[in-house]
């Protein structure tokens, strides 16, 4: 049974049908990419999965439980973390306060400390700047904080929405290395990316989204060599 199963998902914004019946699944241990042009509906799908918006139809099952109607704050407790598009760190709080909020769902203080150490190992910059206000971090550092904050919940599945957006090539490289690390440590990853080439290179499978529908899916390597994918998303 898949870890995350999305079936016939539909999402509307008023009269606009943003997602028109999308089905996909994520198995434990996989890195799955969702690629598509601007406005295809990638963010909307992630929001629907993590419970931030209401679904018009369809179902979402996580770890065998129906979470279609569950609010976002309850889904986090089940082990799903979401790194939202545009980072959305708490600008007026310090780096450390942001990270502690990431562990909001957890009680055991020593376990939280351990996770904090791990996050600092992955992102040494965050430790250097732990008392700095998050709003004063650079874009790349904010992305690291958003990822670190999500990891503080010790998730089994992590959703990431365009983590490389607006970053310099060195930062992009670093972010993708960290996604690989996260996956290697046993966390399942559902990744949304504009940078399709990079995303496919670290993914097991991928889904291609076009204006609210999945038009193509399969093995990441196969998709990388697909002529239509190459033309539309890989700039070749």
């Amino acid at each position, binding site marked *: 049974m898949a870890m995350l199963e999305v079936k016939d998902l539909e999402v509307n914004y008023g009269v606009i049908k943003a997602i028109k019946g999308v089905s996909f699944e994520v198995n434990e241990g996989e890195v799955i990419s969702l690629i598509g042009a601007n406005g295809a509906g990638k963010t909307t799908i992630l929001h629907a999965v993590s419970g931030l918006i209401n679904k018009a139809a369809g179902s979402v099952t996580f770890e065998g439980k129906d979470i279609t109607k569950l609010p976002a704050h309850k889904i986090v407790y089940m082990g799903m973390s979401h790194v939202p598009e545009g980072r*959305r760190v*708490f600008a007026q709080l310090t780096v450390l306060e942001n990270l502690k909020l990431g562990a909001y769902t957890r009680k055991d203080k020593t376990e939280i400390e351990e996770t904090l150490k791990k996050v600092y190992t992955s992102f040494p910059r965050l430790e250097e700047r732990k008392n700095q206000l998050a709003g004063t971090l650079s874009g790349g550092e904010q992305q690291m904080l958003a990822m670190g904050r999500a990891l503080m919940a010790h998730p089994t599945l992590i959703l990431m929405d365009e983590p490389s957006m607006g970053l310099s090539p060195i930062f992009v490289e670093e972010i993708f290395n960290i996604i690989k690390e996260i996956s290697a440590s046993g966390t399942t990853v559902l990744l949304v990316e504009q940078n399709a080439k990079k995303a496919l290179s670290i993914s097991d499978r991928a889904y291609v989204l076009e204006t609210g529908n999945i038009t193509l899916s399969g093995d990441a390597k196969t998709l990388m060599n697909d002529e239509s994918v190459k033309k539309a998303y890989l700039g070749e």
Partner: protein
Amino acid sequence: MSFLNYLINGVSLGSVYAIIALGYTMVYGIAKMLNFAHGDVIMVGGFVVFTLSTRMGLSPVAAVLISIVVCTCLGMTIERIAYKPLRSATSLAVLITAIGVSYFLQNLALILFGSDIKLFTSVVKVKPLVIADGQITITGETIVTIIACMIIMIVLTTFIKKTKAGQAMLAVSEDKGAAELMGVNVNATISLTFAIGSGLAAIAGVLLCSAYPSLNPYTGSMPGIKAFVAAVFGGIGSIPGALIGGILLGVIESLSKSYISSQMADAIVFSVLIIVLLVKPTGLLGKKISEKV
């Protein structure tokens, strides 16, 4: 020496404004709405103590505690019934609803207690402090009010800085969606904010009625508006701003009443507000509010 007396009175009045302003500022910071019924919760707090203590002879401490509980529940109920269904409505709709709630509370008090002014027995039993050979007298009410305000500020600041619920409040005030993604129950957090603000309003009501012992269904509206001004003055959304705004407002009001004219005092207070907002539109300690989608 009379200047010192006026100053101390101003600080005391300002402390009451500050305690009320906290409710405005916290609710604004977290629910992004102006709760214009906040002032009337003060009046409810006053009437609860009046009924229990002045009329029924219950001990003042017990009456105050019950009043805090009643106002806390009232605040949460108002939020639940009147504001929660409007979470995604326009801010104008919410504002009009808040004004409606304000009238509702005033009229309810009118039906229950009538419009005549009630003489409120002070709950403060502290002896006045006479210093400088009797030239300065600080009443027990003044002492208790200033100390209460200081304690409330310290406790609230510590609560927000050090507890999980306090941090959740800050997270919600910045970005509701991101806070949800941390596992924070946004509705519960908003409810808690109303609870704290309304509990403080009860305390403010008791202090106000003890210092100015007349009570009627409209007792809360003017202090409510002044406290709102204080919150804007200090920077709405900011807790230290509420303290500074409240105290400044109280001092300006007290000094204008004493040295210029009691009729002009309110006009002067509002003029100072306008000048402050012209120079610094976000208030003294206000942060720039960046619109988030």
